[in-house]
């Protein structure tokens, strides 16, 4: 009886972007989704396009960054892994209260919220991955503006933004803010711009970090990709999400008032060419839906840091440092990365 009346825990689903499927993740799709009907459909869709299937990439083709890291392979692989995870969550114990995502994770969020059917999302993701890979305009670079305890240093952030403003336009440099990623900024630009930026930034641990095989996503440099995408995907059947969906500006799309045309327009428009504010997406998700836990489905655990940094910025759950975050994760892990098998297990039926 008591189990019956136990309220469900409310989860915020945060879908990951590119760069999360690496050597360690190879094989995980096969482990979690082999034999599923939807994966067969995805494989069939890939065959139609003369692309290696996801089952092959994950189960047969040995991992190579130059292959698996390509946009046209990595994007659908990450989507499939995230989908497998989301489907595995025990809905008797957990309720999904809202869905959001980072960068390419926005497309996954469309699927997991129900705004796009699984196969339609697949077509969108596969097409966009292909477009990005074939055009590969510019690249991305990552740099933090938090201290070693992940506490915000707003002055550093302002300096970084001022720096790209200064460098932009010098000696053929193009530089833009691409993603607000918790305690980090992702910059997008052309080679000249990224090179200048790398020279200007003081090295700190792994940073500045170039993101290989990434284009200058979410910048005006993607205007041509946007035009192509709108031509290729004019009739993608967007609908209203089944659970609230928060986009890369922090805009809330509800199950009742969503205008599918506007959702299409944002996804294949503004979203591609203006900065993606993942921090705003998290802020709105957390404050307006107060989830019990935050769950990152899909491969790897790299988005966890950015989420934790955003939590610290917001002072959410009383967190004010990396140490406090780690202590919370030890005692009651409220950020769950399903790419980590042990954490994934917690959510399964």
């Amino acid at each position, binding site marked *: 009886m008591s189990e019956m009346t136990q309220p469900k825990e409310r989860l915020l689903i945060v879908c990951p972007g590119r760069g999360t499927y690496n050597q360690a993740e190879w094989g995980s799709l096969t482990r979690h989704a082999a034999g599923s009907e939807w994966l067969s459909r995805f494989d069939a869709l890939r065959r139609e396009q003369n692309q290696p299937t996801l089952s092959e990439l994950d189960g047969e083709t040995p991992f190579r960054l130059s292959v698996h890291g390509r946009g046209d392979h990595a994007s659908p692989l990450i989507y499939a892994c995230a989908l497998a995870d989301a489907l595995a969550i025990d809905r008797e114990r957990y309720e999904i209260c809202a869905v959001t995502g980072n960068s390419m994770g926005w497309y996954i969020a469309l699927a997991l919220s129900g705004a796009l059917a699984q196969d339609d999302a697949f077509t969108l993701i596969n097409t966009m991955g292909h477009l990005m890979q074939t055009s590969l305009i510019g690249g991305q670079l990552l740099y933090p503006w938090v201290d070693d305890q992940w506490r915000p240093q707003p002055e550093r952030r302002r300096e970084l933004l001022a720096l790209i403003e200064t460098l932009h336009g010098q000696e053929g440099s193009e530089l833009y803010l691409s993603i607000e990623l918790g305690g980090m900024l992702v910059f997008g630009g052309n080679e000249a711009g990224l090179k200048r930026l790398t020279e200007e930034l003081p090295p700190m641990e792994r940073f500045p970090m170039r993101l290989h095989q990434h284009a200058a996503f979410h910048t005006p440099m993607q205007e041509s990709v946007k035009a192509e995408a709108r031509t290729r995907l004019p009739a993608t059947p967007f609908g209203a999400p089944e659970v609230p969906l928060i986009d890369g500006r922090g805009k809330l799309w*509800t199950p009742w008032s969503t205008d599918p045309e506007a959702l299409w327009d944002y996804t294949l428009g503004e979203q591609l060419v203006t900065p993606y504010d993942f921090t705003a997406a998290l802020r709105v998700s957390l404050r307006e839906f107060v989830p019990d836990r935050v769950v990152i489905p899909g491969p790897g655990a790299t988005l966890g840091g950015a989420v934790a940094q955003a939590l610290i910025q917001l002072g959410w759950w009383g967190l004010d440092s990396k140490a406090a975050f780690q202590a919370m994760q030890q005692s009651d892990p409220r950020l769950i990365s399903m790419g980590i098998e042990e954490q994934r297990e917690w959510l399964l039926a």
Partner: protein
Amino acid sequence: MTPFPLEARLFEALRDGDWPSPAQAWSLEQAGLTAPALVELFESQVLSRQLDLHARRLQARGEAFYTIGSSGHEGNAAIAAAFRVTDPALLHYRDAAFLLQRSKQLPGQTPAYDMLLSFAASSEDPISGGRHKVLGSKALNVPPQTSTIASHTPKAVGMAHSFGLWRRLGEQGGEWPNDSVTICSFGDASFNHSTTQGALNAAAWAAYQGAPMPLVMVCEDNGIGISTPTPGGWIEQSMRARPEIHYLSCDGLDLLDTYRTAREAERLARRLKQPVFLHMHCVRLMGHAGSDAQQAYLTPQQIKAFDARDPLLYSAGLLMRHGVLDAEAIRALYEHIGQRVAEVAEVAIRQPKLDSAEAVMAPIVPPSRPARRQPAESKVDETPATMARLLNQSLYRLMAEYPHLVMAGQDVGRKGGVYGVTQRLQARYGAYRVIDTLLDEQSILGLGIGLAQNGFVPIVEIQFLAYLHNAEDQLRGEAATLSFFSKGQYTNPMVIRIAGLGYQKGFGGHFHNDNAIAVLRDIPGILVACPSNAADAVGLMQEAVRLADEEQRVVVMLEPIALYHSRDLIEEGDRRWSFSDPGPEHRLPVGVPGQWGEGRDLAIVTYGNGVYLSHQARERLEAKGIALRIIDLRWLTALDHDAIQRRVADCAQVLCVDECRRSGSVSEEVITGLVERGVESHRLHRLTAEDSFIPLGPAATATLPSVAAIVERAEGLVPRQIASKRTATESRT
């Protein structure tokens, strides 16, 4: 959660399909709305309602502190949708749905969380930081308003005027785009307030002369003010034929009619730049506030009739009728939002509260901002002159140095002020920068506040101190509180010149010689300066403008009329009260008193006319061997008591000469400050005005301190001192 009666009525309608029909039957297309947009409006209405209901639940738990809600007024969501997010909106307290709807125009907002933080008076509340439950947002261009009835309407007129002024200067220098429209809402009861009537009149007065006035005054008419009904048709009859104001009316229970009409209001205000009165008919549900038992003054039938006019019923009916949502979806939407509000509330109520006086008071003084003063070529005329003359020279210079400085007041332009202080300014700087206003002090101060909020540095003039009093709330309730209630995010820095105080020769009577300034001195954050001579007047005026420009302060410059044209001190023609212009860099900082002389027998602490009188007395006293000094306070607020104590510490006696009334005047504070610092009370004395009004004719100064009284009092104090010194000397020998 047990449903409230209103909810039960909604659920019943959902079950039975029993929907009220609005008077109009607009199609979505006629109204200019898409189906998703209509649902979005409904979501704002439902969120507003659920927040109202939950505020009451939280209050019952001791977790929330404000229950004046928006129930019945939720149609204003459709008004919000008709305007730009950059149009400043001054909202009254039943406009939560407006704010919630507007938040959808700017992604990244967290309106439910923010609103619940404000219910809980949390210091995390992004607009007031837990200081009041206000509707406001910096990002959404909604400056918070107080609950003072309609006191925000004059500044809405000022704000609307500011856009045209920026265009005239050829700049986009303000907080809001120059093609903005100001929205200002109030209820049918506050419509009757003189402040609203004054604001409507000022807007019409300006528009009548062709001045741009892009202003939409939204009167949300629920038919009752707490317990007093608004007479049927009163608002419409009052406004329909008002010159220069477009009158539009809409059914606030019908989102389509409201949106359609609000769009027309927006068009008129933005394109024609003319004022619009948008009369939204609505209903008040659940009483005035949580504490208001409306059954005490309404019959059960009346309450039932109100409830039957719930706008949510009408909106749900529209959604059904237009095939947008079915009953099941509407119920799911309603419950989902209710559930979300309850869940968010549990987090919001645990956020920190203000916990000290220091934390509460932090934003009374606004944050600083970069100076905008520009170098201006000006030759300083050093010919000794009167206060009126040097003030005029200083203002002339300031208007050149601060291109965003605007002057306004009755008769300040063509006439150059009653006492000539603003002569030549309009001819030099144009009628748009030196504005002759209508005769209404609330509107004058409102104009200043509105201009200041949109980036100008206004100097407004109140012609006589006695005229301030009918408009004083514009300073007390509005100008002084804006930074406080917005955590310093919104400010209205300005200088208010007030001619006042007694001793005028030949122009008597209370209303031109008023000496009641207590009303200015107890307002937190406001600074009051009072010059005693021409050179100080320049230093104080230049500092006042700097304080407004850089430190965003509201500064009152109390100018003693009797000293405006004083040239001589003792004898006619001695020119001893004429002073040289100290130049543009001369500024007298807050809290630093002036001092004349070093005598130690007596310190006279005074200000304004008191300084002049004390100088006259000084001649006689020094002739009698009394060595004295005169301390000129210069600033009548933010007194530096330690500085005053240091200035008088080595004096045998201290006499505070105060030309204002014995009760409530600055001398009370000066004496208290000295006592608190250990100055023995037998050394402290006051000579003040009587607690009286000022009469006409020969008796005009009878109730005020005079030179003779100062001399008499000083002689009475010092001989004792000298005598006691003598006794001490004799006993030693």
